[in-house]
């Protein structure tokens, strides 16, 4: 299949970067870099930077490099060379214009997907280095506009989408009411202390995708589980502050999230189909707070569906007929190893599952994750152009349906499908599970 060429603007205008750069002073840059280098990084960064021998094995791991005709500047080592290497070489004496460019590179050309880290013979993790660059840029006040706005939303509302507290509860009650037309005694129990599960979602669900909450509620009710959702802040498990480098707000978000679970005395948190949120609750946010692991066990939707199917709590009435393929989300595959459980679930639900290649932990990133899609419209063309390899990977499956158990992947893959005119539709696992599961008769 010949894929269309996506044109990328030579110079991308972004107020967060451009106006942030205008306000930036040399003193501030040097102070920030000194603070980060002396107080926030240590042996890990030093070892990474000093160990890299520029062998280039990371290059072929990067979807951006492969998609941009093997332009070395898009290779992981190339991106480090254009950012952190310069910072270190110049002892922090870099210009505001450099910080602006470094922010664009770190925030929009790297998804922190860690595929490259898997292929590095020394175990160097360029994603970590890019996140340190983002941290520096945050402290310099130079971050892409839309993701910065999202970080502000997290800071004010503890959710990603400026969802107000009444809007959240009202949405849950609206979905509960709608679902009762299908299952009259269905409940979305709010603040039920001592429930077995707390179900948490990301901000876009109440904002744009409330039907996913309906589906989850239906699944919980049919499975007969003792569950709850919090009516108060802490319901959103997502965290774009993690990707702007605002670690303090990241930690605050995670504290709200886990303390919601502690307050409700639940035994486990089940989260919806989101990858970056999983990373924030399982790795980065909890650890910033000194919780080495999630203080309340977290279960990603893939694991939850696996449990429901293997225990027979959810049964399949008739398998999904259309051909499907699976995009393995980086954060729950390389970050958690859920690829086989995902395949079990999809094979239980679908008749015709077709692998894309490479797959599992070797799968290419969607190029939306790592906060890249949250940098918004200015970077959309670049984002789609930087993942032609993904478009080809999807097209080669010949599948009609592309399953992406991750919100950012889902949105990013929709852009890829549209941009490259692929004849496929993107779905979550829950879309299919809800469609094919055995449903109780309405009395």
């Amino acid at each position, binding site marked *: 299949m010949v894929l269309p060429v996506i044109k990328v603007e030579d110079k991308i205008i972004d*107020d*967060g970067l451009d*106006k942030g750069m205008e306000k930036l002073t040399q003193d501030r840059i040097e102070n920030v870099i000194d603070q980060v280098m002396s*107080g926030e990084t240590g042996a890990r960064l030093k070892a990474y930077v000093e160990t890299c021998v520029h062998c280039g094995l990371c290059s072929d791991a990067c979807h951006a490099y492969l998609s941009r005709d093997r332009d070395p500047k898009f290779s992981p080592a190339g991106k480090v060379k254009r950012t952190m290497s310069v910072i270190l070489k110049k002892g922090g004496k870099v210009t505001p214009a450099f910080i602006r460019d470094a922010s664009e590179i770190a925030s929009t050309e790297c998804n922190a997907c860690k595929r490259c880290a898997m292929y590095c013979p020394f175990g160097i993790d360029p994603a970590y280095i890019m996140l340190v660059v983002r941290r520096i840029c*945050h*402290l310099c*006040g130079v971050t892409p*506009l*839309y993701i*910065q*706005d999202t970080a*502000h939303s997290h*800071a*004010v*509302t503890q959710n990603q989408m400026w969802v*107000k*507290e*009444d809007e959240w*509860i*009202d949405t849950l*009650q609206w979905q509960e*009411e709608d679902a*009762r037309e299908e299952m*009259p*005694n269905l*409940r979305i*129990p*709010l*603040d*039920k202390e*001592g429930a077995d599960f707390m179900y948490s979602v990301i901000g876009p669900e109440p904002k744009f995708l409330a039907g996913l909450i309906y589906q989850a509620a239906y699944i919980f009710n049919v499975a007969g589980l003792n569950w709850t959702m919090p*009516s*108060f*802040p802490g319901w959103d498990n997502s965290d774009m502050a993690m990707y702007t480098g*605002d670690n*303090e707000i990241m*930690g*605050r978000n995670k*504290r709200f999230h*886990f303390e919601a679970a*502690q307050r409700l*005395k639940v*035994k486990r948190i089940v989260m919806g189909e989101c990858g970056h949120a999983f990373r924030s609750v399982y790795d980065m946010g909890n*650890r910033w*707070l*000194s*919780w*080495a*692991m999630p*203080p*309340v*066990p977290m279960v990603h939707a893939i694991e939850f569906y696996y449990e429901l199917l293997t225990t027979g709590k959810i049964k399949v009435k008739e398998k999904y007929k259309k051909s499907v393929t699976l995009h393995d989300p980086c954060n729950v595959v390389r970050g958690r190893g859920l690829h086989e459980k995902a395949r079990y679930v999809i094979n239980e639900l679908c008749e015709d599952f077709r692998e894309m290649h490479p797959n599992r932990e070797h799968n290419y990133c969607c190029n939306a994750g790592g906060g890249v899609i949250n940098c*918004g419209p200015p970077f959309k063309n670049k984002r789609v152009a930087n993942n032609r390899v993904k478009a080809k990977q999807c097209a080669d499956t010949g599948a009609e349906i592309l399953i992406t158990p991750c919100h950012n992947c889902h949105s990013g893959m929709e852009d890829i499908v549209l941009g490259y005119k692929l004849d496929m539709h993107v779905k979550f696992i829950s879309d299919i599970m809800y469609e094919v599961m055995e449903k109780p008769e309405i009395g």
Partner: protein
Amino acid sequence: MVDSVNWDWTTGEKLVSDINEWKASYNWVEEPYASPDGEKVAAIVNTDEAEFNVCENGKAWEIEAPFEKAWCLRFSPDGRLTVIASMDSAWTVVADGEPWEESYDFVWDMRFSEDGKTIAAAAQQEGEYMMVKDGVPWENSFGFITCMALSPGGENTAATVQTVPLGQAEVFKFQKGCYTAAVNGDAWDKNFVNVWNMSFSPDGSKLAAEVRLNLYDYTIVVDGQPWEQTFGCVWEPIFHPEKGTVVSPVRTAEGWTIAEDGNIIWDSRFAQVWHQKISPDGNKLAAIVATEFGRWTVAVDGKAWGVTFGDMVTDAVFSPDSSRVACIGTENQIYKIVVDGKVWNSEFDMIWKPVFSPDSKDVIVKIEKDGKRTFALNNKIWNRMCDEVWDPVFSPDGSKILCRTVEDGKYYRRIVPVSEF
């Protein structure tokens, strides 16, 4: 606090209501709640399609028309049964079947004063936000409200409010400060980038909150005035009940510690510090701390207990005489009780906040084990396993315990001598 002296402390066992029988009368019965004195049990019930009521001891409230929706059923500390309910597409608080006179487009975050005599909630009307206390809304409303608070005595309400409107992605305007706190609807003069987790002084006359001055500097504000010192992060402030000072966890370059009115008062530094508590006599300060990455315990006056837990430590509480501290520690998802740094040998699947006896000698907790709930007193598990129990209450003399339980769907009120555990 509610005075339990006049409660029935003599009747050993009382079957208050058989909840199983309620189920025959309604389409469904939601999770029950027990009154503080144990004399009543109640639940939201579905009476017909999109019709709800509250059932109390088997009897539904006599209301003019069924509620269209109802949620957040709770007993106030003084025993009033309250619920947030919708009637004619408008929301209000209903206490003992009597709705507030005013209703709103939405009502949530219902809270009570310590004595239960005051009820407050957040409300939204035509896109404007306010708090409502005992049915009376703030005179001023705002475009956004969060972090609501009610003073312990019920005198005042407060919340984080937005005073400057923000358009989409106006990040630089945001960073100039669009939020502040409002007390009884009156906003502080000064705006901040963020305002979180406010706390009233015991008499309700002062308000403290966490703030972010810009994207990077955090401090505590008291009645609109920031501390002179700023920190890399802060957590929720509390007022010292005796001195009137404000005490808060703060993050310094060396780690987390405790500051009082902006000045560091603990020599020790930790990987984390939060949920600080001041002893009833005002002489001690305890907090949940991480002594190192991934190891949690309690520190009293800056000195950490020797025992630590890998998952988390929660629900730290001082004894009434200020001499003891109890908390919950979790390791590998096994919950344990810790009192004064010593771990009970019993292991549970869940534990609720420890309760000290009035003389501070006994500690009792609500626990869950193998899907059943009961109590554990001084490391001894009660021999009655229940479907549900509520937090235990000691009699004023400490000799008896009020046990509120659901067993086989029946709600019981029991008075159990401490000696029988």
